[in-house]
């Protein structure tokens, strides 16, 4: 049986059809056994035969149903393994039920790893702000002027040098406060590169922490945002929120 089947295919019908056919025949025989005492009317005449047929037919029906289900499940599993049947998408309710267990089984990341990852992520924004020399007018720069649009809403191409304050332009041009050229305000200013403008606006929007407590508070806020975002990661509820 099945000698001509290739060994790589486990879901070939030759291995499952005999069992399925035998179970189906047994189910038909069970139905016949249950019906015959009523059909031939020997329920009163041959009590023993009627009871035997009813009991045997009932038990046989259960056994054949279990055999049918088991053989069908085994065949479908083999067909999935062969790639003939597509894998069904996970049930949403089952995924929701498994979500707390998966969250509990997943180890929480170490705080050091989290902070390292955060530093790597925020390095392009925070490093230029950290390299800036402390200017006396820095608190005024941290708050944008109320009449101007928020710097974060502007594309770098929209930020013309004339719209920026001179101090911001000086910051965007780099730390040049030590040289004598920094004191010479005359002449057409160098148009800053878009990347410099983005860094300058980011430095204006994200104020540099003044002390360790403020730095810890900012990192805690970012951690909270990341934790909320992780809860809504795609894959838990099959919907993309990012």
């Amino acid at each position, binding site marked *: 049986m099945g000698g001509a089947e290739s060994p790589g295919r486990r879901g070939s019908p030759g291995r499952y059809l005999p069992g399925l056919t035998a179970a189906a025949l047994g189910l038909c*025989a069970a139905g016949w056994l249950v019906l015959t005492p009523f059909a031939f009317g020997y329920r009163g005449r041959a009590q023993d035969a009627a009871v035997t047929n009813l009991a045997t037919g009932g038990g046989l029906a259960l056994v054949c149903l279990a055999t049918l289900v088991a*053989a069908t499940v085994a065949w479908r599993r083999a067909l999935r393994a062969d790639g003939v049947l597509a894998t069904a998408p996970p049930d949403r309710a089952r995924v929701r039920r498994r979500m707390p267990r998966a969250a509990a089984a997943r180890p929480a990341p170490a705080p050091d790893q989290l902070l390292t990852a955060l530093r790597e992520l925020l390095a392009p924004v925070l490093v230029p702000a950290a390299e800036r020399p402390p200017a006396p007018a820095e608190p005024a720069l941290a708050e944008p002027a109320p009449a101007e649009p928020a710097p974060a809403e502007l594309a770098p191409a929209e930020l013309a040098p004339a719209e920026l304050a001179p101090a911001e332009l000086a910051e965007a041009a780099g730390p040049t406060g030590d040289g004598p050229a920094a004191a010479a305000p005359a002449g057409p200013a160098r148009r800053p590169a878009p990347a410099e403008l983005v860094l300058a606006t980011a430095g204006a929007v994200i104020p540099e922490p003044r002390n360790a407590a403020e730095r810890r508070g900012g990192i805690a806020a970012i951690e909270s945002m990341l934790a909320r975002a992780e809860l809504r990661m795609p894959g838990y509820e099959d919907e993309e929120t990012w």
Partner: protein
Amino acid sequence: VTRIALGGLLAMAAAGAWLVAAPFVLRYQPAGAPWTGPARMDVAVGAALTVAGLAGFGAALAGRVHELYAVRPGAQPGQ
């Protein structure tokens, strides 16, 4: 085929054997007497069930053995 299916086929064959033997065990077919309708039907259905159950069990077992030979490293299916 899983073990449940193999066990179900064996149970089916056993039920057929029981149906063949039941008229004589429960004595609703006396020895030497002409065959009654229920006894004739039980023996016929029991024989068919026994043959079908044994054939299905044998075929499923042969497929399983063939599968085990096929997954054995370095074995040829015909050997």
